[in-house]
């Protein structure tokens, strides 16, 4: 099974990206699993719309613990099973909430286990910060060389200033694989799917 993890700052749209990718590959219903802080695992079968209502929010730290879905990728042969994992948003400093810190540590464990990283950044934030990446993003970028398959997801392409921010990002990192997407409006995902399928094909 190939494991792919979605990581980034809180509130950059990781869960929305994860759901869009999962529903794009997995079909009409998503089987979402998660692990409670006490170690118990939960599972729920949801439509993408229900999953979006339940799992996404406008605020930060909606995802407090990692959650994942197993998808059998059936496009072409051989079939590949992909575990697509959504992680808790990472912060640069020490977060005062102990439960959240545990969720972040669990996320970090999954991240360091995953050969595929989707590192999500918020183009709206990038536009406001004059193209300067947040410390957390810089840290994740620094360690990308340890990851066999790394992709930078420039999310929220629908926001004002996002196009310019995306151009600056691509210009500043010509060596990176960058996908410009809007998870909200499901744009830009074709190239993400193509890339992931190619990774699946090679690793099968």
């Amino acid at each position, binding site marked *: 099974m190939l494991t792919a993890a979605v990581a980034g700052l809180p509130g950059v749209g990781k869960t929305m990206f994860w759901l869009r990718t999962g529903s794009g590959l997995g079909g009409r219903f998503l089987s979402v699993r998660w692990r409670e802080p006490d170690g118990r695992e939960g599972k729920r079968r949801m439509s993408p719309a229900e999953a979006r209502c339940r799992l996404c929010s406008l605020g930060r730290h909606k995802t407090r613990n990692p959650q994942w879905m197993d998808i059998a990728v059936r496009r072409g042969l051989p079939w590949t099973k992909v575990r697509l994992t959504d992680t808790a948003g990472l912060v640069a*400093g020490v977060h005062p909430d102990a439960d959240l810190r545990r969720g972040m540590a669990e996320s970090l464990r999954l991240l360091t286990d995953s050969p595929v990283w989707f590192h999500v950044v918020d183009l709206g934030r990038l536009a406001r910060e004059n193209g300067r990446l947040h410390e957390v993003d810089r840290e994740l970028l*620094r360690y990308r060389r340890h990851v*066999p*398959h790394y992709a930078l997801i420039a999310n929220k392409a629908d926001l004002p200033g996002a196009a310019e921010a995306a151009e600056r990002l691509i210009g500043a990192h010509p060596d990176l694989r960058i996908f410009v997407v809007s998870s909200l409006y499901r744009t830009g995902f074709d190239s993400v799917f193509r890339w992931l399928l190619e990774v699946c094909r*090679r690793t099968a």
Partner: protein
Amino acid sequence: MPKSGRLPDLRERILGQYARGELALAEALKQIYGEGFGSRTSPVGGVSEEPRAVFPVPGTFAARHAPPSAAVPGEDGADLYGEMLQELHQFVGLGRLKEVIQEAFAYAEIQKMRQALRLKTDAIVWHMIFRGNPGTGKTTMARFLAKWLHRFGILSRGQLVEVERADLVGEYIGHTAQKTREQVRRAMGGVLFIDEAYSLARGGEKDFGREAIDTLVKAVEDHRRDLVVILAGYPREMRTFLRLNPGLPSRFPIQLDFDDYSVEELLAIADRMAAEREYRLSPGAKRTLAAYLAREAERAEVFGNARLVRNALEKAMRRQARRLAGTAGLDRDTLMTLEEEDFRSGPEVAWTC
């Protein structure tokens, strides 16, 4: 859920420290990858996509045999000093204090360059005293120092261990030294931050706090190369504490005063805190908040500074939620904006504007 690979104990230890708040993200990642865990020498299935650089890990053959150079590279050749300055200058206010920190790091950097060129060097003693009212950024600065002293290679681990009297002072003879040594052990390789340090001396001659001070003094002497101790507290009490313990100031050569923020600086902090939470303040809200802060600064004996701003902001966010709840068709702008009325007094709010 995926299981861990090699060296699970090592990674579990690092993740445990991260979960307990003893390590920040940068340090946790560095330790996980720096110690060899999690790195993959070849991509799964042989798909080679990313250029992969190799850097000598300290202590390895490659690191030992690298040619002498005056440059001080970061983990991947980054300009560490410049990066540190950039982060330092993101702090609002703290003018004089930033100069002192900058000077100390500049000195450390030059010493490294001298060492690389095999010139004589002189190590800085980094033990510090922080004096300032609540909310002036003492803990934040300690965290900053822990991180950057580690990245500069001065501290081996870079964690911040925050303690107070109860963590150091015991209840019977011998217990205090044991407790204090335990905290020093936890902080080895990082920063031991002792908040309200004067409370160690508050019980008089027969109090066990005295024993904690003596144990600490020995620790700062013995471990000056891989431990930084910061004594912090309110300005007046700290001055009395240092006067009554004349051996301390010479062992803590860097003494920093955290002045109260001006109202303009507090508003800048409020803007930043709001932006981090994806809110913004309307011009009216800023005016109301400024008036409130000015009144508080004048009235309160011990001013709450940034903590006061955070509390005011959080109350305003709750007030905004109450104001907007039940309104249909709210747009992004409305949800993000805190208005003047959100900062005004209400029945359930303790403070008034």
